[in-house]
């Protein structure tokens, strides 16, 4: 299904065997989005149900703007799956939203086995990116959600009402008071550790734990949580590679 490319100065839309590639040009973001919305309005039915790869070249989008594009595509029943960018900052933004990230070289010659891969959930192994970690240098405040497909390291506190969701491990160099979900794609081998470990709720893979209702903590050392024999176990961090076991 090679569609004739649609070109304007702001965007280019190209149909490929895997789905749709939308290339964002340079210029003011508002204008680009308007242009995209107009194309989807007129030709949306044609592209419906497809997976979309967004090629951003040197353009760096804020996380809200990328979500807006994903929402816009969603309204036309398209799913934003991939962001193709050479820019490291843009990679992190896309990664935080749980999107696949490709560099332009990798994106080009991709032999797709079938047109339009089925929308079934990819296996956990493919979604967890154990080679990548996001470093979050901030307080995760109430209402904020940090997402990463790989490991997530927070330098700062995770306050009550804040949330960290990671495909891999979660490390909090600070006080953990919010909600953490490590191994969020079903990896029970993930671990969570914090200097001051007092999460509101803790999830590792498919397991959920919360502190006892009447727990009075007087702990002053770092702790680590892992799944062992079907339950989440929290124990003092004593150094070494403790807690991390083979999946």
């Amino acid at each position: 299904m090679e569609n004739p490319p649609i070109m304007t100065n702001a965007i280019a839309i190209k149909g490929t065997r895997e789905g749709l590639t939308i290339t964002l040009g340079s210029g003011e973001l508002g204008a680009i989005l308007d242009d995209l919305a107009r194309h989807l309005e007129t030709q949306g039915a044609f592209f419906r149900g497809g997976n979309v790869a967004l090629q951003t070249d040197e353009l760096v989008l804020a996380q809200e703007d990328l979500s807006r594009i994903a929402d816009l595509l969603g309204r036309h029943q398209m799913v934003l799956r991939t962001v193709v960018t050479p820019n490291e900052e843009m990679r992190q933004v896309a990664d935080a939203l749980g999107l696949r990230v490709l560099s332009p070289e990798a994106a080009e010659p991709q032999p797709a086995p079938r047109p339009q891969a089925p929308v079934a959930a990819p296996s956990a192994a493919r979604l967890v990116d154990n080679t990548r970690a996001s470093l979050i240098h901030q307080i995760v405040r109430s209402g904020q959600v940090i997402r990463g497909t790989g490991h997530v390291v927070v330098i700062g506190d995770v306050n009550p009402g804040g949330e960290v969701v990671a495909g891999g491990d979660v490390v909090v160099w600070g006080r953990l008071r919010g909600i953490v979900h490590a191994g969020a794609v079903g990896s029970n081998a993930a671990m969570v550790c914090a200097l001051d470990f007092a999460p509101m709720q803790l999830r590792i893979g498919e397991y959920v734990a919360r502190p006892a209702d009447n727990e009075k903590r007087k702990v002053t050392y770092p702790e680590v949580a892992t799944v062992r024999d079907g339950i989440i176990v929290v124990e003092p961090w004593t150094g070494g590679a403790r807690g991390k076991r083979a999946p």
Partner: protein
Amino acid sequence: MTRVITITSGKGGVGKTTTTANLGTALAKLGKRVVVIDTDIGLRNLDVVMGLQNRIIYDVVDLVEGRCRLRQALIRDRTLDELYLLPAAQSRDKSAVSPADMMRVIAQLRGDCDVVLIDSPAGIEAGFRNAVAPADEFVLVTTPDVSAVQDVDRVLGILEAEGRGETRLVINRIRPELVRRSEMMGPDEILDRLNVRLLGLVPDNEDVLVSNSKGTPIANDARSLAGRAYHNMARRLMGEDVSYLPVLVRRKSIWERIGLWKRSARSGAGG
């Protein structure tokens, strides 16, 4: 240069309006020209706390919709010549003004006064957006309740994510006995969690409630502890280094001391 400061909290009922009225009063007493604005459209209160409710002719919605000029909508305080109120409309709702409308109103005030204090409604929706849009800096109000602290944390997160101006915290209604017995979060614990600069501490005090219902902000009463707390906050806002009132170390009254002595005597006799 005019400073535009929005007073907000996330949670309702923690004392945003009381803080606005009292900071406004205290700043005016320092000789500043102050305009306080109520953005809680549909649930206006600031006029009542300042005792100006019977003088309202035009409100902020009239101003935005062009039925009056700015000068006509501003109401001068009963006692302070340099303190003005721009009241909210009572018969409309938050959708009657937009953030852009608020920016235009504030633009008219810039240069004409020293400080603009904007009293935000509770929540983080449209009304909050209106109040926050034109501000240069923010005063966040919380009580020692965990829920109020968590809501301020949420608001701080929003303001930080948008890269807005400086934020400072007022901790309202502190109950020293409860903090001492560690049954309530103390100021240190709250500041530690929120990682924000402290503007002031206000003890829980009946006088504040009484003066609110009389329509005379407690900051008019320099003898009360709460009144002094607001004066100190005003001076800190103006860049002065003022030490904090000892709200946590309350001296026991003679009656309490006798009471304690009696109680201990009785328990001694019983044991």
